[in-house]
């Protein structure tokens, strides 16, 4: 069965490593904070100016001066730090953040990403996405494999305006985990539980590389 959004978040959480600073985008990426593997310590950066972001506050304890990049009320963990937006993006562009996870509308087989603009529709802006994808060493895209019309979001080339070029290293979808190879192409790493390689082939329009047996993801309930 294809993963739901929680499942995608759980699978990406397995990529976290002890000691990493991590920036999570809005949507599925935000859920990852709920599934940090036992025994490792990571710290979440939110680009509006906090490291050491904690969970949502209890009802009645919200603070208007304490929000995340999605403008949601949050809490700060012991050891947290606040900073201004220029310093925040110095952390990001300066590659001090080890992992960025964000959503996408399209990813191409050479690692281009489009996630900010659909021509003809209201454009809300790129926020910090262009800075994040231009600089991060390690970027994982969390998204559904196909769009609402059933069309593949993993393409030979992006059709929408780009957010960044040749920057995505890994894509985790409801169907699969795929590495974006430096020479181009999506290498199939894992299948979602019960999803066949044929289903993934059918849902992928970019170049797909399949070598040997493709293992199933192990997702804890």
């Amino acid at each position, binding site marked *: 069965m294809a993963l739901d959004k929680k499942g995608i978040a759980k699978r990406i959480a397995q990529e976290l490593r002890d000691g990493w600073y991590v920036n999570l985008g809005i949507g599925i990426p935000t859920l990852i904070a709920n599934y940090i593997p036992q025994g490792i310590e990571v710290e979440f950066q939110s680009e509006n100016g906090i490291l050491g972001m904690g969970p949502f506050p209890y009802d009645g304890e919200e603070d208007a*001066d304490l929000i995340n990049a999605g403008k949601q009320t949050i809490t700060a963990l012991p050891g947290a730090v*606040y900073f201004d*937006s220029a310093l925040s993006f110095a952390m990001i562009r300066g590659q001090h953040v080890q992992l960025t996870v964000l959503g996408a509308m399209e990813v191409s087989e050479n690692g281009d990403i489009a996630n900010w603009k659909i021509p003809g529709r209201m454009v809300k*802006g790129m926020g910090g996405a262009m800075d994040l994808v231009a600089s991060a060493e390690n970027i994982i895209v969390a998204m559904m494999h196909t769009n609402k019309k059933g069309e593949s979001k993993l393409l030979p080339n992006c059709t929408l305006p*780009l957010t960044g070029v040749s920057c995505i290293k890994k894509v985790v979808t409801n169907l699969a985990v795929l590495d974006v190879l430096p020479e181009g192409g999506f290498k199939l790493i894992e299948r979602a539980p019960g999803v066949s390689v044929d289903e993934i082939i059918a849902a992928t329009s970019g170049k797909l590389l399949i070598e040997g047996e493709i293992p199933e993801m192990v997702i804890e309930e």
Partner: protein
Amino acid sequence: MNKVVANVKEACEGLESGMTIMLGGFGLCGIPENCIAQMVNLGINDLTCISNNAGVDDFGLGFLLQGRQIKKMISSYVGENDEFERQMLSGELDVELIPQGTLAERCRATGAGIPAFYTPAGFGTEVAEGKETREFNGKMYVLEKAFEPDFAIVKAWKGDTQGNLIYKGTARNFNPMMASAGKITIAEVEELVAPGQLDPNQIHTPGIFVQRIFQGEKYEKRIEQRTVRIKG
């Protein structure tokens, strides 16, 4: 040096139609509420506003949009505002969207006397169209320029009469860089104190950057997305 002005009216003297104005804040967090209200009162228009966001329909910069006082918005993200959307789609409002880190650095550069800088953000996208690009160590960068604002308006938690400022939580965001960038910088604070009341070690914006300071009459500090967890 005493930077105190009597009230918001005095603080906003000299703000005129057609000016370029920087306003601090991220979403509704850390926005200069009192000065925005005064800009509505002044009825000035044709403004170019540099601010990360454009408020919501009935709060923040949304008030200025309602009165069609803004000619151009320079922001990184402008969702959550129907009136904004209407004016943008009808062509009444000019909008320049720029990456958030580039926006922050352009503000910082303005205050720091740096006319332009190279950033990797936006290379290969429409943001880089018409801009100089250059390769450094095998990677491509885009040349981005400082702003030329007439006024910068910021909001801090505490300030002293010298204009030294301390921000609270994530309400800091764009305020420090914008404070440094104004030809005239207006700071509104929740609590205005005497010199010596703030620990010099803890000050975020030194008073040298601030020309006018006052204690805001009231702060609604509206929350845009109230998210909570259940106890237990």
